[in-house]
């Protein structure tokens, strides 16, 4: 066969292979630069309590930070998995309730006072947890989403696995699927707990 023709065919096959691999990847999954770095500090009010929570409070423990909101449709899908995980008592799961009121496109939050907003957020979040079960050791309210920005949150749900030294070791972007839980999260949790 013509030598030149074979080369063109090989180049074409390589291009097809490259594009085929590209198609299997999810463009929404942007690797977080925070992995291997200390979890950003914050101090936020706890849901339904007169206390605050800071990541330093859980120093010495391996824990999960799960970003959720009641308006987040995918969170419903994930929630059952989280409740199941919580019932195994493996590690504390902290819920970061992200823009409970402001994230809801159907509501004009600019007309609310800060107190009204917090009250509304608390009510909505608590109702959601009452209906679907509460997997969280505690939840905190990130009303304006500033802590979300510090954690590089760009789509809810997102979940961070934080080790005993307060370093982020893993980030799940999107729903924690049973596969992701079994294959990535659980082995890593076991390893970090050693």
């Amino acid at each position: 066969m013509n030598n030149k023709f074979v080369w063109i065919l090989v180049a074409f096959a390589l291009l097809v292979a490259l594009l085929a691999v590209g198609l299997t990847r999810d463009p929404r999954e942007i690797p977080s630069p925070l992995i291997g770095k200390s979890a950003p500090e914050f101090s936020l009010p706890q849901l339904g309590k007169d206390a605050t929570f800071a990541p330093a409070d859980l120093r010495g423990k391996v824990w999960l930070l799960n970003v959720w909101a009641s308006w987040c449709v995918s969170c419903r899908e994930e929630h059952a998995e989280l409740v199941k995980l919580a019932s195994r008592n493996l590690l504390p799961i902290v819920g970061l309730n992200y823009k409970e009121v402001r994230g809801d496109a159907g509501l004009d939050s600019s007309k609310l006072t800060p107190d009204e907003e917090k009250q509304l957020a608390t009510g909505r979040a608590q109702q959601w947890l009452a209906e679907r079960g509460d997997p969280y050791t505690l939840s905190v309210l990130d009303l304006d989403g500033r802590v979300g920005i510090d954690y590089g949150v760009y789509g809810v749900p997102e979940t961070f696995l934080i080790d005993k030294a307060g370093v982020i070791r893993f980030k799940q972007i999107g729903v924690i699927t049973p596969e992701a839980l079994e294959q990535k999260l659980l082995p890593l949790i076991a390893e970090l707990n050693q």
Partner: protein
Amino acid sequence: MNLLRLLTLCLALFAANSANAEEARPLAADPVTEQRLLAITGELRCLVCQNETIAASNADLANDLREQIRGMIQSGKSDDEIIDFLVTRYGDYVLYRPPVKNITLFLWGGPLLFFIAGIFGLRHYLVRRNRQIAAGDALSDADKRLAEALLAGEAPVTPDPSKTPPS
């Protein structure tokens, strides 16, 4: 009188319409801040609608980020500090102009590489063609006869049946 009534009606309709319209996005008080905000966010990629800049995007997150950057400009942060702030949180992905790193060397150097390869390819082709012309075998005997016939204004001696134009 009629004209006045029409005008009132128009005004009333307009007022009703604008009440329904979306409120304008909040702008910082001074245009200098807004100008810098535009310049910075025009270089940054929105993470939600990935092919838009943060300046252009209407996504909630882009709005929040603009608000945050506006605050940072007002508190006197430099452009580099602001861009660093976003890169530490979202990664190089937010930059429309990725930095030169080991992993992006091919991205930056690729065009030059292809250009050099093209130059070599062109040289190779020209040298070979020149050699063919010098050797006098650029045209086959049949081609030569055909070319001479055409130059002389005659019909081709042996028209190629595979090249008859479609009727």
